């Protein structure tokens, strides 16, 4: 709200540029590490300490005590909590996550298989979101208060209100049931080449992207409008730059900071959305794996999947923080 104030308050830099950047990076990296460890601790406590005896849960209430005890020992659940936590942390670092209770296969392998679908979906959705949102946001800001602006903004207002899974169902209704252009779900894998895979990810990605793009477009629009009101825009115009040149050369870079912030925050929603959307389209991704594992009481898989998702969110927001420093020359160590 008081963005203007920041411009006044910045002190001249005290260090040389390279030293400043590395100090900044070091501090951010330490925070990142602490956050990741904190997340892992919470996840471990909730999923490992709270449920009591995982072996009992796994085998059901009417399993014989001996069998339960045997499984407890086999899974290493008889060891003290702290040891089990450290063991898991070590596993996270070296990539050995143990075996799934239900499948018997290594968890790392299971997750890797599923990520082959989830990550392309997330990237595709993010790309679509960014392209749609920036186009709509910049267009509406440049046509402020004209018909196109009002029209697109009304559309985004509706877009924000749509639950993404319902929008996905509507897309299925239109493209799979009525028009029969695309299949209603499923994923053929990448073995038959890239196109069949992408084709089946198209509807899910659109479903994810449209809703997110509606939010991001509004953010972009108001960010661009805010910057357009700044004095330096008038200065640039007084130099003889056309409106278009001012928009692309002077306004956008300034407007990208709030947009980037929201994109970072949206990434968490995007991953959450991916879990939901995978269930709508019966896609064999991380989301499906989690739900199958919950049904199977396969807590070790759930724990690692949740850690992976939380870790991805944390890392993306770390990257966004570092990007600020690259984009905005004003951001200095003492402000972060």
């Amino acid at each position: 709200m008081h963005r203007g104030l920041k411009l006044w308050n910045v002190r001249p830099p005290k260090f040389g540029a390279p030293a400043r950047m590395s100090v900044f990076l070091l501090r951010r990296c330490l925070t990142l590490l602490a956050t990741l460890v904190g997340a892992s601790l919470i996840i471990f406590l909730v999923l490992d300490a709270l449920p009591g005896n995982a072996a009992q849960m796994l085998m059901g209430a009417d399993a014989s005590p001996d069998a339960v005890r045997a499984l407890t020992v086999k899974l290493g659940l008889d060891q003290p909590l702290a040891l089990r936590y450290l063991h898991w942390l070590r596993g996270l670092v070296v990539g050995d996550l143990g075996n799934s209770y239900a499948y018997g296969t290594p968890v790392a392998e299971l997750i890797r298989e599923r990520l082959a679908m989830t990550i392309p979906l997330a990237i595709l959705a993010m790309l679509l979101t960014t392209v749609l949102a920036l186009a709509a946001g910049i267009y509406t800001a440049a046509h402020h208060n004209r018909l196109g602006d009002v029209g697109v903004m009304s559309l985004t207002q509706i877009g924000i209100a749509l639950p993404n899974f319902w929008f996905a169902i509507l897309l299925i209704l239109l493209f799979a049931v009525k028009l029969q252009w695309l299949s209603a779900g499923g994923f053929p894998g990448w073995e038959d080449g890239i196109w069949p895979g992408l084709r089946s990810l198209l509807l899910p990605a659109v479903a994810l992207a449209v809703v997110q793009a509606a939010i991001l477009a509004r953010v972009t629009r108001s960010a661009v409008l805010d910057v357009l009101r700044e004095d330096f825009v008038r200065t640039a115009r007084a130099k003889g730059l056309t409106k278009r040149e001012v928009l692309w050369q002077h306004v956008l870079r300034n407007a990208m900071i709030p947009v980037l912030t929201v994109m970072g925050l949206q990434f968490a929603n995007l991953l959450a959305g991916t879990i939901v959307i995978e269930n709508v389209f019966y896609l064999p991704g991380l989301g499906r794996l989690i739900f199958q594992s919950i049904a199977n009481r396969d807590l070790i898989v759930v724990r690692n999947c949740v850690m992976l998702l939380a870790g991805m969110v944390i890392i993306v927001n770390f990257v966004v923080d570092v990007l600020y420093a690259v984009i905005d020359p004003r951001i200095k160590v003492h402000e972060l």
Partner: protein
Amino acid sequence: MTAGDQALLDVSNLGIRLDTSRGPAQAVREVSFALRRGETLGIVGESGCGKSITALALLGLLPDSAVVSGNIRLDGRELVGLAEADYCTLRGNRISMIFQEPMTALNPMHTIGHQVAEPLLRHTGCSATEAKRQAIALLDRVGLPDPARRYDAYPHQFSGGQRQRITIAMALACKPDVLIADEPTTALDVTIQRQILDLIADLVAEQGMAMILISHDLGVIAENVQRMIVMYGGTVVESGTTDAVFSRMGHPYTQGLFRARPRLGARKGTRLATIAGTVPELADLPAGCPFADRCNLVVDACRTALPPVAEIGAGHAVRCIRTDVALTRDPVGVIA
């Protein structure tokens, strides 16, 4: 005042309608003045009198919703209604402007060197290296210490006075015919104001530019320009050579403005004179003389129509029907 053929900039009957939050308003009406090559003109008035809007009109930078009537001629070429693309070739090239807020007039994301070189690249078609060489020379000329080393620095690394020097370098980059300085020192510390004004005066003399200096400060106007116009309520109430106006103030408003200025060396306990009432809102300017409600010489005829311009000396004109009475009063107003 008559506009000779030799006038570089000739403004006649300028009128500007703006859309304000309170509906359309005639922000400027019947403003005429002429500026010869190398001449300096001051525009003085309180905030909201239309002086900045007039300046923006000269640059063609009014909001899209503004309606401009009358004529603005640069070297005989009509600027009112000029195509945007043509205007872009004039701005920063033949007419340029220095703004009030050096803190916000520079783009925080671009290096100052780039911002100074920008008009050169845009208008002179010189190479990037040549533009950089000229930009460094300009920065040196405006007194920025060590310009070659600080070429790639960002605006936040400079003080207010230094930033104003940078905006001056930017405005002068293409050696414009007309320089408009809109309250160039208002936002600066008193100690720096004089330095900046002297710098501008030196550069104007050196390059033989014409300058329009806008200020609310009679002292600044008295010391820096050859001719002046006084604006009130969107119109010119008095105009003439600075010497003539200061020795014989013909408009009650000019007299009031003069009496209201704070002075050093005034006897302790002397009350600062004020002009009763407040500046009228643009949206409800009266049909008659805009100063009528605050004027102590007002008669009924003042309120019926905008008073005509009356010559009271060589090139000294006043828009008042009570000038004869006003002139008999003590102009310095010690006893007012």
